[in-house]
């Protein structure tokens, strides 16, 4: 049976409550993992592990949270993502809404693209 978006959201919510020790009502679609839910770097690994278990899927390293794009000097110059970098991010992160980020391209703001909705879309893509 295909999971509806609400089903996926419900399970993602459970994963984030367990991984980050937050309350259900904090895990809204627009909540940012780092700024709003207090996630730290190791939590991303934890989230990936828990998503694999919850949805019986396999998630490759750097697939959901690619950290090797912004460390590449061809993609980032003076703290801003280059055109090449944006193209790479769009290719690597089809599940993320990058339009807002594209207006500033500040590397420091990059973590804001990881919202609960981003994870839900990612999981939906993996389940198809």
């Amino acid at each position, binding site marked *: 049976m295909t999971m509806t978006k609400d089903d996926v959201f419900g399970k993602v919510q459970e994963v984030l409550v*367990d*991984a980050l020790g937050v309350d259900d009502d904090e895990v809204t679609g627009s909540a940012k993992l780092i700024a709003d839910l207090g996630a730290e*770097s*190791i*939590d991303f*690994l*934890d989230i990936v*592990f828990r998503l*694999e*278990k919850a949805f019986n899927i396999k998630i490759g*390293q750097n697939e959901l949270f690619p*950290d090797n794009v912004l*460390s590449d000097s061809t993609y980032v110059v003076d703290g801003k993502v280059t055109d090449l970098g944006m193209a790479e991010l769009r290719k690597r992160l089809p599940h993320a809404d990058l339009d807002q980020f594209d207006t500033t391209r500040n590397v420091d703001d990059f973590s804001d693209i990881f919202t609960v909705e981003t994870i839900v879309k990612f999981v939906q893509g993996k389940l198809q």
Partner: protein
Amino acid sequence: MRWIWIDRILELDRASRCVAVKNVSLAEEVLHDHFPATPHYPFTPVMPNTLVIEGMAQTAGILVGHANDFAEKVILAKIAKASFTAAARPGHTIQYTATIDRIDATGASTSGVVDLIDPATGSTQPMGQIELMFSHIDHNRAGLAFPEHNFVFTDLFMDLLRQSGFAPPAHLGAR
């Protein structure tokens, strides 16, 4: 002081399960501070749960390290869950059973059961559950540099393996 909070490894199944024990002794100084006598309460020596977590981290850490022949530097990254239902006192044996839920190049997550064995009665009762996450730090450097040699799995751990009847890998324990 030797920061090793397990006494013996009983079982070690590669990338699957590790069982270790720790005998709680009144000779351990930490028990005298946890908890000392007060005007209202008598001396109550109890193994601190933080150190029970450390014991599980060492048990599970050996399991995760052994999976790759101790080539990775395995660092405790997160205590995902720790709950306790009983306290260990001098003369008790704490038994740690760690199992790997998932392991890959970046790290591992483990589940653990803590049991309390009372030699006075021979009984075993559940003491707690501890879920941990470990990072293989050479794959999660975040721009940091670490020494080349494996500073996690020191001679202390290799000696523990050897004394428990398990052969350390040749590159770490041959002597």
